[in-house]
């Protein structure tokens, strides 16, 4: 048989050209799609960056109520919102930020170091190496001297009006006992000033009736022998759901100031943690952007062991001294494509911080 004439050079060249055309077409197609993907990632990142420097919706959102995520309250970075964002899973975070691709959000200070406002180096689809560390927040307390919780913590304790002069920059406020009895200033003005401070993402712990309406607190005297913990939210105060707190003194029931459920537009996300005679004795809610914890009494013995005062001391200290790790600069994945970052400036305690959002597609 003669050799096939199809194995001629011109046929081989045409086959080569055909293969080359296929490769070029595929490469052009993927390049065009890659450019579109970059535009998409950039648009998402820009939108999310704009959202982050707003209060979000609702203005004082929690993880249960959030529709649109934002980290600002009263024109400042809200520590409460930052910590709330850190506590959700990445899918929920992406939904709140209206992004679909990989994202990482972190905060930088003036020297380009990471500020762990989230309680970790950042939030999102990246792990950053860090050294565990803590930070003591600016905590102020005011009380009648009879409770004795905040004196055992890192809070600065006041028993007079000076508390109100200093509270503007506080992150944590503790009110113990009959606060109205130790201040000379107008109770109405004090209530207004405390409501203003609550516009930022502070944490407030109130032990006993403060003696004037503040943060939605109004109480009723209830005589009871025990307080029953009914909600898992008590875990954050060191209480266990189902636990009983014996508050009798000398074997006799005592009168404690149980809560009348707070109302008003500033109040949200009310949750009863423990009850006495069916009424809220320990509860938490948000007031404007602040998280309020109310405990009717500091005295009692826990059925699980220990006493309530000590439990409250530990819980208060946990609020005041929080994880604030020392973070290495983030390193993004080697296969990250179309990587984009946007920076936004936010104010926090008279400092300007940089809120950075980084987004990328994955190859």
């Amino acid at each position, binding site marked *: *048989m*003669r*050799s*096939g*004439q*199809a*194995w001629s050079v011109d*046929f081989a060249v045409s*086959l080569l050209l*055909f*293969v080359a055309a*296929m490769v070029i*077409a*595929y490469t052009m*197609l*993927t390049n065009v*799609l890659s450019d*579109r*993907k970059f535009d*998409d990632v950039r648009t998402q990142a820009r939108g999310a960056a704009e959202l982050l420097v707003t209060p979000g*919706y*609702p203005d004082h959102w929690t993880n249960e109520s*959030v*529709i*649109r995520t934002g980290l600002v309250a009263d024109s400042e970075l809200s520590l409460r919102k930052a910590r709330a964002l850190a506590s959700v899973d990445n899918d929920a975070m992406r939904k709140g930020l*209206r992004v*679909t691709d990989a994202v990482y959000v972190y905060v930088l200070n003036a020297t380009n170091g990471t500020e762990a406002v989230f309680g970790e180096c950042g939030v999102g689809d990246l792990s950053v190496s860090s050294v565990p560390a803590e930070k003591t927040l600016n905590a102020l307390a005011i009380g009648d001297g009879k409770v004795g919780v905040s004196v055992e913590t890192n809070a600065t304790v006041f028993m007079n009006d000076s508390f109100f002069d200093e509270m503007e920059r506080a992150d944590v406020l503790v009110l113990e006992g009959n606060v109205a009895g130790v201040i000379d200033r107008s109770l109405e003005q004090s209530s207004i000033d405390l409501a203003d401070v609550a516009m930022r993402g502070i944490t407030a712990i109130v032990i006993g009736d403060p003696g004037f309406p503040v943060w939605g607190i109004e109480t009723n005297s209830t005589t009871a022998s025990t307080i029953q913990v009914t909600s898992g939210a008590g875990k954050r105060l060191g209480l266990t759901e189902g636990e009983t707190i014996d508050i009798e003194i000398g074997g006799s029931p005592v009168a404690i100031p149980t809560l009348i459920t707070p109302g008003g537009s500033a109040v949200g996300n009310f949750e009863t943690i423990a009850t006495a005679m069916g009424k809220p004795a320990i509860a938490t809610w948000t007031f404007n952007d602040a998280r309020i914890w109310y405990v009717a009494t500091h005295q009692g013995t826990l059925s699980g062991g220990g006493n309530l005062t000590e439990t409250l001391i530990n819980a208060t200290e946990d609020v005041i001294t929080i994880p604030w790790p020392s973070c290495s600069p983030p390193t993004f994945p080697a296969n990250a494509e179309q990587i984009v970052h946007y920076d936004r400036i936010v104010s926090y305690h008279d400092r300007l911080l940089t809120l950075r959002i980084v987004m990328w597609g994955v190859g």
Partner: protein
Amino acid sequence: MRRAQFALEFIIMVAIALMIGITFLAGSSIVLKDTSELQRLEALNGIGYLLQDEVILATTVEDGYRRKIVLPQRAGRFQYAINTSATSVSLRSGSVDIAYPLPEITGSFKKGTNIIAKDGAVVIS
């Protein structure tokens, strides 16, 4: 007449070319399918987030507010369906079904013209 001597080689060459072409088409269709799904998601999000923003805006304004918004018959080039509840709106297209949380509303969204009104509460008609 001599028969063509390159018939077998010709068939082999055509087969090779076809395989290359099929491989190219398969690769392209996977890439294009992924892109198409992303476009669908983008189109749905464009509508969903618009509705979210409109309802949020309505909750922040005074009573008496009225605004007309027109929802397209298609999300880009994709068919879609809308389902509204008191606190969310769901958009469905193909195998994608996304719920967008909303502030509380009365009424439901539909394709075409919708009126968002605020009279105490936010009402969609």
